[in-house]
């Protein structure tokens, strides 16, 4: 395994997570997935299950609100057993869009702390910005991959431990780190030192380890900026295996 700063950080983070109390690690995250496409629901469900999450998948924003107990203006105490740890929703949906769902969740005093992740097949800057400004935790460009799920799981777990005052700071840190570490995301087991501009057959061990952060030739040069400026935005995975 390479020994550059990036890998060390991740390993530390893993070890750190193992130090959580038994209650934390034993409990699976419960994710509410919202998407009107059956194909996408099946895929996101599988991605989440294989990442050890409990999943409830619904096909609309309205149903999501019903599940949370938000839409009927009833006391939502009855739904405490179905505690949702994360909401992941498609942006483009008939009826209530993912953005509207996001707003409703963030307007609710009970549920506004639940991180909401938006998915979209369109990499539209204005859309991304709008969602982040409204309080979305992250914005994933479809198709969703295992590395995306692993990433959002990571910071969901971390937030519970660190507390919500630090949330904004974490948001910026997330983006910075994602720039550094997302280069290998197209192949989950890959090592961070694999160069993003080399071909897909690059062997990680052949790279000379660089001090943190790893070289990022093609990613944006302002990793802490929340507004992506081009197609290599933090919210778009930088693909290391370009087939074109």
């Amino acid at each position: 395994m390479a020994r550059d700063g990036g890998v060390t950080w991740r390993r530390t983070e893993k070890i750190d997570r193992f130090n959580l109390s038994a209650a934390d690690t034993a409990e699976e995250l419960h994710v509410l997935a919202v998407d009107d496409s059956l194909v996408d629901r099946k895929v996101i469900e599988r991605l989440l299950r294989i990442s050890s999450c409990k999943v409830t998948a619904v096909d609309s924003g309205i149903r999501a609100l019903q599940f949370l107990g938000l839409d009927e203006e009833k006391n939502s105490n009855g739904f405490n057993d179905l505690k949702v740890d994360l909401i992941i929703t498609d942006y483009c949906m008939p009826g209530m869009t993912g953005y509207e769902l996001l707003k409703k969740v963030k307007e609710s005093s009970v549920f506004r702390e639940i991180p909401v992740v938006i998915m979209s097949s369109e990499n539209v800057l204005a859309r991304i910005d709008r969602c982040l400004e409204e309080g979305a935790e992250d914005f994933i460009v479809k198709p969703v991959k295992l590395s995306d799920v692993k990433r959002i799981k990571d910071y969901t777990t971390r937030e519970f431990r660190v507390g919500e005052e630090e949330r904004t700071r974490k948001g910026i840190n997330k983006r910075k780190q994602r720039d550094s570490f997302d280069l290998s995301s197209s192949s989950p087991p890959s090592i961070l030192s694999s160069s993003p501009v080399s071909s897909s057959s690059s062997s990680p061990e052949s790279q000379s380890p660089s001090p943190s952060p790893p070289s990022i030739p093609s990613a944006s040069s302002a990793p802490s900026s929340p507004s992506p400026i081009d197609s290599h935005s933090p919210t778009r995975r930088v693909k290391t295996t370009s087939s074109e």
Partner: protein
Amino acid sequence: MLGLAADRLRADTNRLLAFLFHQGILDEQFLQLQQLEDETSPNFVSEVVNIYFHESEKLLRNLRSLLMDKEFSDYNKMGIHLNQFMGSSSSIGAKRIRNVCVAFRAASEQNNRAGCLRALELLEHEYCFLKNKLHELFQIQQQRALAAAVRYPMQN
């Protein structure tokens, strides 16, 4: 010899997949789906793909009936169908189909009916081709599973 049959089937699978990737018909998202299969969910890919086929055929029918209508003008509605088709195609890794949808959508945004018709025909063709190839792939995989079961009956 059953061993040779299993080898041949595996080679067939690899050859077909290599062809599909090389031609740009499938992309890495399809590989991602394959990685999600395991003993608890051994038919995940074919399940998702069959849902995709079912939905796609509905969408294609809708698109065709929209365009065949002499008084057709609802490009907006067509755009909605196209977005759905694009989304699900990209989710299973059907790259070429998705690219045709992009071109189709461009024609639709220009209210170019002739262009839309051409795109639809191309879409139907690409879809048929993909469906045949994936059915072939699933058949080979079924044969492999059978061959393995016969070869190692005690494992079941």
